[in-house]
């Protein structure tokens, strides 16, 4: 009998067996399940058997890298092995081994970096990658890439992996102005978070340092949490300091409340929203609330939102970027169109929106026209067409595309007369496309033939 533990002896046996197999060249000749086990656990068995650092580091070569790729189609397993060896080298203060590990990690990461969020999601959707592998990739990505990866992956994460996805959300601590952040990840995950993990999601949302991003996270999560979590979400929304952000967050929670609670929080959100200093933020906060509020407060919210949108920019110096203010005003008015409740109100507001769009820079008109047209009453469609036809050649096709669906045959004829006056054949053809699709239902290829013929005969 010797003093070695029974399991220590077994660990050495595992390490020796797998190590010999790797060196013998018979690695790929193993039965599939054993090959899988051996690849995933050789480094762990070497580590557990207490082999010298050099032996563990020696494993991290190109052959091992390719062997991981052959098994998984990623280098994530290789990187995990590098991490294991690296931790050991750090503990042993082995500088040479640490440098080797750093180089291996850089190579593996560089090879993994070619992945886009869409491709990663697609790989999981089509079972090329397991959710666990994809999550490992996300975890290893730099912080600025982690959120876009996680957002793309969210619909493909099975419930039992959601806690890991929330770990990824928790790891996002820096607030980037123009790219995705923790709030985007939480909003993307929200529909898939099991009831047991919702409290954690709310906690993560509540701990976002930026007030605006915290409000966005609450907006994203609110529609999906269980009824018993709503009070926590409300407390979190009330903890936001900025008026506009707090009003937006409260608006999201309002939609989940009923009866007296709904009315009370709606009034609270309304008072906050209408007292926001910046007119653009005020308009956004009121429009957000308008979409959620019911009952007596609603008409007050609508009136305030309308007044704010109409007066957008008037307190600013008239010469200061007046065109931008006109665009902004039109946009905020258009935001209110889906919320009107009477035919008269719809007529008044739609006329106002169309006039505001007409005053916008021609290049920006189509985008807003597209948003407004579904809410424009039939008798005002001709005015919508008028706005579309006021746009110049190159942008005319986009403007017509926004209105084509609502045109009568007579209005289509009016548009065609205008199109005939467009100077270049290309712009003329482009402008005809949306009308032709509406009129004939032909395929794009057939339409293009018809349009070229039209151009040749009308030119």
């Amino acid at each position: 009998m010797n003093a070695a533990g029974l399991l220590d002896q077994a660990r050495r046996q595992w390490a020796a067996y797998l190590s010999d197999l790797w060196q013998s060249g018979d690695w790929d000749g193993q039965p599939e399940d054993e090959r899988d086990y051996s690849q995933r656990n050789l480094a762990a068995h070497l580590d557990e058997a207490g082999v010298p650092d050099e032996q563990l580091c020696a494993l991290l070569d190109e052959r091992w890298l390719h062997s991981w790729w052959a098994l998984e189609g990623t280098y994530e397993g290789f990187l995990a092995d590098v991490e294991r060896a690296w931790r050991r080298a750090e503990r042993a203060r082995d500088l040479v081994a640490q440098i080797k590990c750093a180089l291996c990690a850089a190579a593996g990461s560089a090879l993994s970096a070619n992945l886009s969020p869409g491709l990663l999601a697609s790989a999981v959707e089509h079972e090329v990658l397991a959710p666990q592998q994809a999550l490992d990739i996300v975890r290893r990505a730099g912080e600025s890439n982690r959120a876009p990866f996680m957002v793309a992956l969210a619909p493909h994460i099975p419930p039992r992996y959601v806690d890991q996805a929330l770990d990824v959300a928790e790891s996002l601590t820096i607030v980037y102005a123009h790219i995705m952040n923790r709030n985007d990840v939480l909003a993307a995950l929200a529909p898939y978070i099991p009831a047991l993990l919702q409290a954690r999601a709310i906690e993560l949302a509540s701990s976002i340092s930026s007030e605006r991003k915290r409000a966005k996270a609450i907006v994203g999560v609110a529609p999906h949490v269980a009824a018993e979590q709503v009070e926590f979400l409300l407390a979190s929304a009330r903890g936001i300091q900025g008026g506009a952000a707090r009003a937006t967050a409260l608006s999201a929670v309002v939609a989940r409340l009923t009866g007296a609670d709904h009315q009370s929080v709606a009034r609270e959100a309304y008072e906050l929203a209408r007292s926001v200093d910046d007119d653009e933020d005020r308009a956004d906060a009121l429009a957000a609330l308008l979409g959620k509020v019911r009952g007596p407060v609603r008409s007050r919210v609508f009136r305030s939102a309308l007044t704010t949108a109409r007066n957008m920019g008037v307190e600013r110096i008239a010469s200061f970027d007046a065109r931008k203010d006109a665009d902004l005003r039109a946009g905020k008015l258009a935001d209110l169109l889906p919320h009107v409740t009477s035919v008269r109100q719809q007529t008044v507001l739609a006329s106002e929106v169309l006039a505001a769009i007409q005053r916008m820079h021609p290049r920006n008109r189509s985008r807003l026209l597209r948003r407004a047209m579904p809410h424009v009453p039939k008798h005002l469609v001709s005015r919508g067409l008028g706005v579309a036809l006021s746009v110049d050649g190159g942008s005319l096709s986009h403007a017509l595309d926004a209105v084509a669906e609502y045109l009568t045959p007579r209005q289509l004829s009016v548009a065609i007369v205008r199109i005939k006056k467009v100077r270049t054949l290309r712009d003329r053809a482009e402008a005809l496309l949306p009308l032709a699709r509406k009129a004939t239902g032909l395929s794009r290829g057939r339409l293009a033939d018809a349009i070229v013929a039209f151009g040749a005969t009308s030119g």
Partner: protein
Amino acid sequence: MVRDKSEGNFMYLHHVLPAVEHGRYAGDRRLELPSGLEGYYRSHWDSMRGDDLDAFLRVNQKIIACLATAHRPITLRFIARVTSLTLTEVQWTVERWREFLHESRGRDGPEFRIYHASYRDFLAELVAE
């Protein structure tokens, strides 16, 4: 009596009740019931060791230790390869230790792992002979 011996551990009942049912502790032999879960593990281990010491040292303990240090359920064929024993020897050992093992269906047939972490803890305390 069983309540005292089990020390409130459900796993004790999981092992001992079938053993009682199979007559291993038949009659008025309450003193032979092992104390606690570890006592039960020890009694089984010693009993197997006593049956055939040579086979126990050369075959059984190697196979059980191999299973206890595997990172996931593995096939009997794989155990045979790692321990350099025959498939028959592995099958024979697994049969004798069945109550401590969990069987599941793998890609290439049945796979085995240690049923409960407490048994692995028990094995971790043993010295190789």
